[in-house]
């Protein structure tokens, strides 16, 4: 959904997005300790598959973005994970342009990471239901913020192609509900089975 093709965005937007993406990548890689590598790779794989496969929903078709879940499980390390997924999608399937990678990365990773930082103190294995509901809410919000960012960037660069808010809402609202359900379910499951997957280590990194 949020894969912007080459040649749409203006240079200032591209530059700002690339810089912000590089900054996020740097933060994420710096936190990527030895023990975080398998988890980060696993979630990169989950993101790669989930956002490559589209399924019909209403008049159009959608695919998951999983920004909220990635942010919750990886913190800033969601940036390298999503970057690898996006790079492979651009190279293998032609989803989105290579020059737009930084912008796409920020669109998909940043909302989830920031929302996860906000809700993290309220998430604990002691209150699985509340935690899952919060995780779902942040996932839904992160989809909407991603959609808003995509719309804003296109509108700023090329007013002629500015997306319509109504059409955006029809496309992204069902997706945000779906994403909330998936994220809440996964959070609930992980809190019961392996709570440290959603623990503080996701933010700090286990080893320097």
């Amino acid at each position, binding site marked *: *959904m*949020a*894969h*912007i*093709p080459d*040649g*749409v965005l203006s240079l200032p937007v591209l530059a700002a997005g690339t810089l912000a993406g590089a900054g996020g990548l740097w933060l994420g890689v710096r936190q*990527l300790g*030895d023990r975080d*590598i*398998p988890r*980060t*790779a*696993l979630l*990169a*794989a*989950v993101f*790669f*598959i*989930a956002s*490559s*496969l*589209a*399924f*019909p929903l209403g*008049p*159009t*078709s*959608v*695919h998951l973005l999983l920004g909220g879940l990635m942010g919750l499980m990886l913190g800033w390390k969601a940036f390298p994970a999503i970057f*690898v*997924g996006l790079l*492979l*999608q651009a190279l*293998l*399937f*032609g*989803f989105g342009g290579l020059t737009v990678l930084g912008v796409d990365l920020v669109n998909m990773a940043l909302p989830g990471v920031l929302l996860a930082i906000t809700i993290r103190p309220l998430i604990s294995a002691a209150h699985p239901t509340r935690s899952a509901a919060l995780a779902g809410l942040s996932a839904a919000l992160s989809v909407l913020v991603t*959609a808003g960012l*995509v*719309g804003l960037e*296109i509108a700023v660069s090329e007013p*002629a*192609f500015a*997306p*319509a808010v*109504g*059409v*955006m809402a*029809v*496309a*992204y609202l069902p997706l945000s509900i779906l994403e909330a359900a998936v994220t809440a379910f996964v959070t609930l499951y992980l809190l019961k*089975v*392996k709570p440290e*997957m959603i623990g503080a280590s996701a933010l700090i990194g286990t080893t320097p």
Partner: protein
Amino acid sequence: MIRRLATALVALACLALPAEAHRLKLFAQVTGETIAGYGFYIGGGRPEGADLVVATPDGKEVSRLKTGTDGGFSFTPPTPGRYRLTLSGGDGHLATVDVSTDGTPTTGQAVKTPTSPTATLPDDLDARIAQAVDAAVARQIRPLLEAYDAADGRVRFNDLIGGLGWIAGLAGLWAWFRSRRSGHGS
């Protein structure tokens, strides 16, 4: 745990096959001097009432129209030449295709169907035959071009699995790099 997640992942992948990408595409065919075609989402659906901008290759806007209920459009540019069509689905999806109405080659996949032989009849019999053959061939290969366009953005299972291999390889590379730096490997 990781094994369980991986199993769930593979199950998801199998469930969703045959997989289709989600991408807006634009199919355009030139008949005489009229450009006609339609926009479509590869995952399914047609963009209704979407903005279609016709511009010259250097970016000057010539015209702007809306697609019909089936995502279709038809447009006759004021002068024959090369045009770049950009379709904006309204939800952030964009598709571009280059067409030419004067026979000069374009980089896009749009094809030129010559004017129907009944419209202008050259005196030369050979030219008439050539024109009729051109029109017939264009009519015959249209479904083929449509199918090619639709297949173009499809996610192939091999590529998907290849991508997973890349991720595993990158993780291994990173781990190896870390182990060399911290001396765990020696």
